[in-house]
């Protein structure tokens, strides 16, 4: 592994990213893709949580869409059927989803690897069935429409342009928070768990508790994303929360890099572009391609595509600077 190149390059990259993000929704730039960009932001939020979960605690969640859906449905039902303030609904959704993750987290996290994956798979499917079946609340398979916009005072987020900034505000906030966590004592504990659970336990890290905490965190992220999702579309249905949705999230995490925070943007971005733009004409092939991506990435770059690209880029720069020093 390369030594960290804590450089002006990183700051430059982030600055460039920010400028790019601010300019995207303008019609003279990439405005026609605002909708896609909003979905990328929302997906990134869920993906970051998944990256932390899979990358740091080594736990695969094959049902992350369940939390995404819970956030969506809580927000939808509370704000539409019960007229709760959408922001409050979002907060309640996040707390409820997080609480749910906590309750099922402890028993599930005593399981290891394979069993856990199946448990989350089962969980995702159960939630999807519930979304479809509890039609008195959820509107059943046809879903619910008429969900209100989010607003701050008299400023209503009623255009894609406005919602783009809202979504990316949340998305960047979550990325920053995750980055802070990773670089902290908590982050070290997580990396320790990933490095050697036995050793981590031996120096006082409560491995099970950390796993649950990250699980809850990933659930909260997903819930917030789900809430933003329904206030964007003003519509909710079970369809975006099925097994395939969970698989796509894993694809995003895997492309972005399992233990990478900022890689999540890359992962979500490429996968969304792939699924929403390029693969539409391919019928069922898109499923096969996701499967292929998962297999290829796991075989050749299990640390994640983005992470590998960063490595390669860093190596090239190192060689360049060495040559520069020699001449």
């Amino acid at each position: 592994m390369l030594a960290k190149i804590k450089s002006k390059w990183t700051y430059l990259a982030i600055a460039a990213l920010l400028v790019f993000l601010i300019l995207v929704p303008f019609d003279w730039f990439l405005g026609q893709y605002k909708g896609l960009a909003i979905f990328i932001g929302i997906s990134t939020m869920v993906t970051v949580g998944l990256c932390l979960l899979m990358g740091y605690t080594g736990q695969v969640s094959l049902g992350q869409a369940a939390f995404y859906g819970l956030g969506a449905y809580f927000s939808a039902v509370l704000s539409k059927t019960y007229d709760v303030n959408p922001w409050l609904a979002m907060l309640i959704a996040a707390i409820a989803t997080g609480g749910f993750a906590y309750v099922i987290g402890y028993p599930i996290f005593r399981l290891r690897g394979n069993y856990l994956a199946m448990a989350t798979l089962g969980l995702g499917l159960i939630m999807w069935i519930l979304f479809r079946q509890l039609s008195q609340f959820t509107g059943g398979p046809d879903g619910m429409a008429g969900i209100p916009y989010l607003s701050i005072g008299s400023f209503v987020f009623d255009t894609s342009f406005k919602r783009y900034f809202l979504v990316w505000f949340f998305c960047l906030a979550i990325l920053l928070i995750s980055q802070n966590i990773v670089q902290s004592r908590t982050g070290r504990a997580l990396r320790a768990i990933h490095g050697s659970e036995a050793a981590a336990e031996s120096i006082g890290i409560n491995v099970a508790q950390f796993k649950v905490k990250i699980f809850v965190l990933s659930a909260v992220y997903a819930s917030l994303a789900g809430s933003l999702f329904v206030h964007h579309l003003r519509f909710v249905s079970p369809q975006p929360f099925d097994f395939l949705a969970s698989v796509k999230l894993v694809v995003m995490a895997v492309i972005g890099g399992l233990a990478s925070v900022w890689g999540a943007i890359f992962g979500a971005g490429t996968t969304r572009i792939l699924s929403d733009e390029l693969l539409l004409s391919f019928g069922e092939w898109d499923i096969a391609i996701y499967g292929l991506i998962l297999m290829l990435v796991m075989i050749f770059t299990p640390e994640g595509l983005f992470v590998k690209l960063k490595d390669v880029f860093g190596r090239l720069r190192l060689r360049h600077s060495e040559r520069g020093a020699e001449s």
Partner: protein
Amino acid sequence: MSADQFVQYLISGLTQGSIYALVGLGFTIIYAVTRIINFAQGEFVMLGGMLSFTLAISAGLHLVPALLLSVLIATAMGAIMYLLAIRTAKRASAVSLIILTIGAAIFIRGIAGELWGVDFVRPPFFTGRESISFLGAYIHPQALWIIGTTIVVTILLHLFLSYTMVGKALKACAISPRAAGLVGIDAKAMALIAFAIAAALGAIGGVVMAPLTLTAYNVGVMLGLKGFVAASIGGFKNPLATVAGGIVLGIVESLAVGVDWGPFTSSYKDAIALVVLLLILILRSGRLAAEERES
């Protein structure tokens, strides 16, 4: 529920459960020999059914060669999957392997969806379509085939594992991969065989069930999950317990639908298996964790 109805539900549960048993056996064999959970197990069931449809109806083959060929092709695919995907992923962590087999499952499903479309297909019944009266209920001849095949396969598997060289080698790997290696057993060859057998078991299940339950490109996930439940009940070690588990699951599902109380309609049937799964995993988690630590 009347006695007649009860018997009817019992029979349909036994039938469904037999399929879960076969899928579960596939999971068990692969896990016992390689410690891998093959998330693509359900897809081989799907393939068995789909292939038998294509060969028997579209290609017009006679039934028996069509069935045999279907199982053979699916088995070959299981072997290929192991060789291409699993073997090439050298330093694969547990997470990587899970994602890898999920990727394989999705890949197979996607290809199937493209080749066969999304509609259900029905291969021909093995023998006739008239239900037979039995203890006040009706049992379809295909259901008898399903149950019968499962019994035969289970017995054959048991004999194979206990009395043939290869079978005993597989068992040795299951008990201790390291010790097996020390006595000259090639772990990679055993893994390949395990994958092939598991694919065959799944395909046999698929081939025998498809005429009765229909099949489509996306049945793999649920079947895989339920087979996993069966295998969990057997602790991923004990084939007989796996079969028993599958059958119990099938019967519980069937009866739950039959009981039909309150808001729980038959659409919740699938959820039952999932809840059972979570309960088993949670209840066993303590013991599983302890076993892992002590090894």
